[in-house]
């Protein structure tokens, strides 16, 4: 996370966000799944058990999609403390394993202040160290004007 403040005027098309490296542990996934009580109470799942994951045709336990989108959003909200996330849209291209280095990147692809919302469009990715993209997407964020 970043404690810097950014303003709409500071940002240009092509500006890069990140990279940010993260490793999601088994414990973090269990804590996340516990928040979703219905799912957690139904017992081990492909998110928390390698055995269940394998029985469903996977090779290992995976990070829930809902957690992946939260992590993708953090790339944006972590860029500066005053970023406001308006919309995020992601495609899960591959299942995301636990305990693996994940690299998050973004790039500013659009800038629009017509609506008065100071909107920035960004492409975002989550990939492995070998460059394989696991989650891709785009988002709209807003930043305040410099007074």
């Amino acid at each position: 996370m970043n404690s810097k403040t950014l303003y709409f005027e500071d940002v240009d098309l092509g500006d890069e966000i990140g990279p940010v490296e993260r490793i999601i542990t088994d414990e973090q996934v269990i804590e996340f799944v516990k928040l979703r009580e219905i799912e957690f109470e139904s017992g081990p799942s492909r998110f928390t058990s390698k055995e269940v994951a394998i029985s469903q045709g996977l090779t290992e336990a995976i990070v829930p999609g809902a957690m992946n989108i939260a992590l993708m959003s953090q790339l944006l909200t972590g860029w500066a403390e005053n970023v406001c996330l308006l919309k995020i849209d992601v495609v899960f291209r591959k299942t995301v394993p636990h305990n693996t280095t994940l690299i998050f990147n973004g790039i500013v692809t659009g800038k629009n202040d017509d609506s008065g919302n100071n909107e920035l469009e960004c492409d975002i990715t989550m990939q492995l160290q070998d460059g394989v993209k696991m989650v891709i997407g785009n988002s709209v964020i807003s930043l305040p004007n410099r007074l």
Partner: protein
Amino acid sequence: MTTDDGIVYNRSLLGVENITGTFEVTRDMILGFARSTGETYERYIGDTNGKGDISAPPTICNIFVTGLSRPDIELEFGELSFFAGQSIECKLDIKPGDILTGRTKLDNVYSKTGRSGKMVFTVWQTSFMNQNSEIVALVNESFVTRNKNA
């Protein structure tokens, strides 16, 4: 190219909105979400003692989406189903004590054929309204179903 030709499912469910649950957002829930996803901003986790005003990270509605009960669309295809994609529009801050009501509808069912064969996509749209009748978030979820041996 996408099409829904030949997909067998219960088409009477298309576009029909149902209230699928009411959820209280607790402080513990927000802190748990923030902890599990590694948030460090004070606005999500409070001060060093975990005290102070907090709001929820913008995608927290996802934990309620998972808990929603949805009707079986009676899709006659495939054995494996995966979460394919999702979009979230964040309309308003969500705070501890907010009571959210979720409304879900089946928005679309379509198929695509790729290298691994035919896949059927099911798209659900969910809105969350707070206790002041304000929409706080809109969530679109897409699930893909395919055959096991594709």
